[in-house]
């Protein structure tokens, strides 16, 4: 069970989710992916995506306008 970090600060839609998708496809069930982004829209994007795949997630605002989304991979994720 490992924790991985994905920094997509400064990236604009759709790049954060594309990168998240790609990274998630290489993780094993039980791993946690922490995505750090400053793009407000993409937080919703990533959460919708997580929900669809049945991943658990949690969001934290760590600084003004920077969010961290913790996603726990529950199953093998489809590739990106």
């Amino acid at each position, binding site marked *: 069970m490992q924790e991985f970090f994905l920094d997509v600060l400064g990236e*604009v*839609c759709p790049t954060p*989710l594309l990168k998240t998708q790609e990274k998630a496809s290489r993780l094993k069930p039980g791993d946690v992916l922490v995505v750090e982004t400053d793009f407000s829209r993409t937080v*919703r994007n990533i959460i919708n995506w997580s929900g669809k*795949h049945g991943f658990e997630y949690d969001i934290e*605002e760590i600084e003004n306008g920077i969010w961290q989304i913790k996603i726990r991979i529950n199953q093998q994720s489809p590739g990106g």
Partner: protein
Amino acid sequence: MPMKNKSQSMFFVIMLLIALLIGFQLARTGRLLALNWFFGIALGVVIHRSRFCFAGAFRDFFLFRDAALTRAMILVLATTTLGFAAIQFHAYLQGAPIPGKLYPAGLNTAAGAVLFGVGMVITGGCACSSLARLGEGFLLYTITFTGLLIGSLVGVFHYSFWKPILVDADPIFLPALLGWPAALTVQFALFGLIYYLVQSYEQQSISLFRRGSRCRNSFWMF
């Protein structure tokens, strides 16, 4: 995780006061200007608060099978149609010219729309969300904005070339063509159809995800 958040409430209050000041100053020049200012602020607040993006309505659907914004866009279209139709019908009853965005449809519309579609996905936002992101502090959209200025200018420069060929027709106002009840019915039927198609495709893909199927590519074809 320690929060490095600084409250920006004081800045908010200051900026709010400035907004009101500007508004009242504008009201002295003309009611129209002040109205637009306050409506603009309201629109900006809503776009930011609800994380709206029309570019996303298309892009997220094509790339991620995410139809949340698409459905929201259809809702916008449906409700706005109702409101606009009321305003237009009111004018029609009074024999006044029909107000609204009525332009001729032609090759230029199609070509322009394609260019716009490509552009909005590449830059990461449509016209309205680009402005809103600018307000949020995204420096990238200053470049987008510059591009918009340049593109519009060149487009207007070329107007004299393509106007005679493409635009010299009358706008097609659907109620004039089909009658008001039929036009509204057709519009709403189309809204419903698109909603249904989009929704069912998203549902389909969700069940695929849940079963953990391996998809070759995140990009799919309708």
